[in-house]
């Protein structure tokens, strides 16, 4: 057990390697950093989940040829477009926060991350408000099921993103992160931008097409 070995200073015993405590370091076969690799694999699995929902969406629209939205219902394109702008703005403020900490600008980091959090919360609030006023339920039609399924799946991702952003915000205000060490913002940032990209696809498919 090398980890438990106690060095004998002053006895002239030098084995040429540093003192090491705890379990041996995990083997890393990838050139990508573990944190980024984890997020990469996670996002690939996320794309598959969204892909399943999009398959259902295109099945009823293309294969079945059903009208969209269901007859007698409307979906608020203007509100969704406004919400899209809010979500895109949140990515800009998040990028501002990350650029700020890289330049050792703590005020910029705090302002950027707090703005991102509020913009994300606004997006979710507007979407919940939209659900309340839509006038149809998931059980009413296949279109309704897909609409709530796709937008709800995305909304759940926004909620997860907001949870991550809350952690980043608290840590930012506690003085964490530095120009050298900001992986804790970078990895949730990639996730948040992914959620944004996915919303653009959802918005285009559900509201515009």
């Amino acid at each position, binding site marked *: 057990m090398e980890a438990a070995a106690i060095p004998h200073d002053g006895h002239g015993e030098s084995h040429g390697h540093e003192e090491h405590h705890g379990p041996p370091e995990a083997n890393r076969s990838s050139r*990508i950093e573990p944190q*980024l690799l984890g*997020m*990469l694999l996670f*996002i690939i699995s996320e794309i598959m989940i969204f892909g399943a929902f999009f398959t259902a969406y295109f099945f009823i629209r293309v294969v079945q040829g059903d009208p969209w939205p269901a007859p007698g219902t409307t979906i608020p394109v203007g509100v969704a477009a406004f919400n899209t702008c809010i979500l*895109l703005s949140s*990515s800009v403020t*998040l*990028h501002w926060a*990350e*650029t700020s900490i890289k330049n050792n600008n703590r005020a910029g980091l705090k302002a950027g991350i707090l703005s991102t959090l509020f913009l994300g919360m606004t997006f979710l609030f507007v979407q919940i408000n939209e659900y309340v006023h839509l006038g149809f339920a998931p059980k009413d039609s296949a279109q309704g099921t897909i609409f709530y399924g796709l937008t709800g799946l995305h909304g759940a991702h926004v909620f997860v993103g907001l949870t991550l952003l809350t952690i980043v915000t608290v840590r930012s205000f506690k003085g964490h992160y530095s120009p050298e060490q900001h992986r804790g*913002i*970078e*990895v949730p*940032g*990639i996730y948040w*931008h*992914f959620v*944004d*990209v996915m919303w*653009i*696809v959802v918005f*285009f498919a559900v509201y*515009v*097409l």
Partner: protein
Amino acid sequence: MLNPLRSEAEAFRFLVYVAVVFGVLIAIVVVVKAL
């Protein structure tokens, strides 16, 4: 080559490109629908 999963900065740039492409697509669809 741009890899959005390599860093936050690249993910943001990828988002901007996607937004631009979809913005153009949405504009085309809206114009075609209006015709």
